[in-house]
């Protein structure tokens, strides 16, 4: 399974993270997204005429939507990440998967504007991002009152992985995460999962690592 990947892309990270969490090995094909704009070159446009990354290739299956990639990886290796099949849970997973595109457009748009100087109305992108974060916060508060730590269930699903990266990187777009205590707890729950992997700007929980002990004089 080959992933056309860019290390700083939150959407690519979703797929790398999902694969790591469920123990699927990916062949990583790095794409020079910036500054080379390789995703708009003939080789990648032939795979994905939309000119976006990530792209996941498995035999003659070519996926260009990260949520579809999450569903594919989970269905192949760890179907419990697709939910239990209970109607409410199924609906919540679909709700948050669709919602994740709003995070990409708002928080991701603000991040591209601030990091790569892409054009855009930064005030409007940030306002839309804050509106989306408030919805997510309210949703997580309600889940907490139902006794559940994750977006659709008491265990993580593909919906959590679809929403997590752009939220965690919101400060890159000038949007503070300080006002959202439920998002903070949820982020910590995801970052504390076994086999969690990092990307630049998103680190695992330090307190889970053993305290490094340096012998005096060893350095």
């Amino acid at each position, binding site marked *: 399974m080959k992933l056309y990947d860019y290390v700083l892309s939150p959407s690519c990270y979703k797929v790398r993270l999902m694969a790591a969490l469920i123990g699927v090995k990916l062949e990583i094909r790095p794409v020079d997204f910036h500054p080379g704009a390789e995703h708009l070159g003939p080789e990648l446009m032939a795979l994905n005429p939309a000119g976006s990354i990530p792209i996941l290739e498995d035999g003659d299956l070519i996926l260009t939507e990260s949520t579809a990639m999450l569903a594919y990886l989970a269905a192949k290796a760890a179907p419990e990440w697709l939910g239990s099949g209970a109607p409410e849970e199924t609906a919540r997973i679909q709700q948050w998967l669709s919602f994740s595109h709003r995070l990409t457009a708002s928080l991701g748009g603000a991040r591209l504007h601030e990091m790569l100087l892409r054009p855009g109305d930064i005030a409007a992108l940030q306002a839309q991002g804050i509106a989306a974060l408030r919805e997510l916060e309210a949703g997580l508060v309600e889940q907490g009152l139902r006794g559940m730590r994750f977006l659709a269930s008491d265990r993580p699903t593909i919906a959590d992985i679809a929403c997590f990266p752009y939220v965690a990187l919101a400060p890159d777009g000038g949007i503070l995460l300080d006002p959202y205590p439920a998002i*903070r707890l949820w982020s910590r729950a995801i970052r504390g999962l076994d086999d969690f992997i990092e990307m630049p700007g998103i680190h695992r929980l330090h307190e889970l690592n053993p305290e*490094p002990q340096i012998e005096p004089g060893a350095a």
Partner: protein
Amino acid sequence: MPARIPAGPIALWRSQAGHAVASADRCPHRGMRLSHGFVRGEALSCIYHGWSYGKTGNCLRIPAHPSLTPPETIRVATHDVEESDGIIWIALGQPAARPPRFEGLVPLRSLTVNANVAAVEAAAGAKADPEGLVSPSQHPQEIRLLLAPQDDQTLIHVLLDDKSSPSRRIAASRTAESLRRMAEDLQAKVQAS
């Protein structure tokens, strides 16, 4: 977690033994926010170079100098903290009195509103009582609000009857979201006029 009090930003953290501590949100070493840090045992460590601080603010450990006992002069300011019925109170200076108790109420959640206290009270249709609680006129039985002004924003702590069912609690959370929208609309109208 990061929080704000009138004295400035703080890192509010809970030690492994369960003590809540309010430390200034700035590592004296390089100025990094301590709320980006992490708690191990009874210490809060800075994410940048790992300097760690105890509950009274003294520096306990500097990882780059493992054999050094940090001098007493390296410390972060801390504030007295009192926890009662699920609410953490932080004193500015020496506490003059014990914080109020809210019998029969439990905290639900805290929301930041882009509006001042007057706009929140106008949206609620009620003013704070002597203990600081607002009972919104449309929902007097449903929720109580405890308001904390933060510069041009207001932090709303939502409380409700401690016997409320989960579905009542979810409804109360949605009511608080509506009140926030109303308060922000009112504030925007005031600023536009």
